[in-house]
């Protein structure tokens, strides 16, 4: 089963100009992208726990199958960082910022050429999405940047 990443909502004060509101949504989106990448490269999944291999013959650390672990010579096997060429994690981008009837939305996606690989890995060990710690980071950063912008205005 592919787990659907969660949506998070950020209340924006009404007195903000539309441009500033969009800038904050952009901040939230960019922070979300950075949080996903940082977490994944640290080997943690969308539950913020260390990602494990579903293989029945895991390596000592439980991160990859033993056979694949041997193949990853010179790459990390102590964590499941989902990196071989780096293209899949690099393919996580802030796709667009769009206004909606009730506010604005930042859409994070994986580039089309990496989608199949990303979906496969999502089934193996869910990584794409907003984890509880990602959510905390997004809310904290957006709030801090909002206060900065308000103080400058």
């Amino acid at each position, binding site marked *: 089963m592919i787990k659907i990443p969660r949506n998070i909502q950020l209340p924006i004060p009404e007195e903000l100009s539309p441009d500033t509101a969009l800038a904050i949504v952009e*901040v939230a989106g*960019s922070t979300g992208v950075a949080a996903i990448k940082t977490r994944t490269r640290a080997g943690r999944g969308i539950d913020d726990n260390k990602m494990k291999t579903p293989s029945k013959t895991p390596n000592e650390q439980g991160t990859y199958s033993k056979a694949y672990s041997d193949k990853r010579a010179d790459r990390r096997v102590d964590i499941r960082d989902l990196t071989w060429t780096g293209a899949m994690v690099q393919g996580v981008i802030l796709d667009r910022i769009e206004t909606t009837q009730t506010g604005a939305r930042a859409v994070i996606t994986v580039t089309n050429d990496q989608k199949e690989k990303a979906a496969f890995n999502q089934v193996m060990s869910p990584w794409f999405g907003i984890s509880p710690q990602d959510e905390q980071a997004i809310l904290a950063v957006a709030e801090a940047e909002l206060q900065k912008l308000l103080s400058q205005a």
Partner: protein
Amino acid sequence: MSIDSLTETAEEQVKRIARQYRKQLPDLRDFILQWIRDNRQADGLLRSQVSLSLVYALIDRAGTKKYFDFDPFLNLATETALQKLKGLGIEYTGGLETPSIRGLEAALAGEGVAFLEQQQAARDTATLQVARVRDNIAAQVQQVLLQMQVVPTPLTVAAAQVSAVSNLSQGQAETIVRTALSGQVQSIQNAAGARMEQAGIDVLYLYSGPDDNLDRPFCDVCVGYAFTKKQIAALNNNQGLAVTTHCGGYNCRHEWVPVPVTFVERQNIPLATGDLIGRANRAAR
């Protein structure tokens, strides 16, 4: 993998997409399969300069362009591929423009061949043969980049397509496609950083990616640190490629991730220093 199987793979991919979206695109499967049949040559390869333009136009005509959501990438791909290919030392003399409206109209009206001949004639008079060969590679890489945004294409297949029309080996072609694609994605991220900066937000760029024994010495020094734009400009990977878009160089697995300063502070990410930049540049020599 044989040439026939390459083509079969492409056809299977198109069929799969058409099956998946049959309800939304009742006519697309037949259109695209007919296009493949029309353009497949004796050697089994698809060689049509208007192929992606045609696919694009068909999807557009089916009224489902929005569903595919590739238009922003398509434009960005052509624009950034142009710059990236220049950065890779591939000269071009034309043919790397965003698919023109005239090209699409010609494709839809069935004038594709005539239109191409017209373009080719103009090109022949203006360029040397060597330039045309390079142009062909550039156009092929561009086409592959666009194709990869529409149909999931394995890198090996994409590189085989480039290799087939150039004197590049499979490995060289893979490196060029991978590096150009990576540069393209990096440009999207840099654009997000630039938008935040324009909105008055202080932005830093994380040098993000794997930290393992395969890292280049340059990347090994930089990975995990946050840089300002000015600091990035002072970096030199000694590969002849811009650090801003290609990080450590060809096949680099790292990337710049733009983030607000507050994210860096919150996550306790170390800041780059002048000393670190000096070490990175020395390591790249």
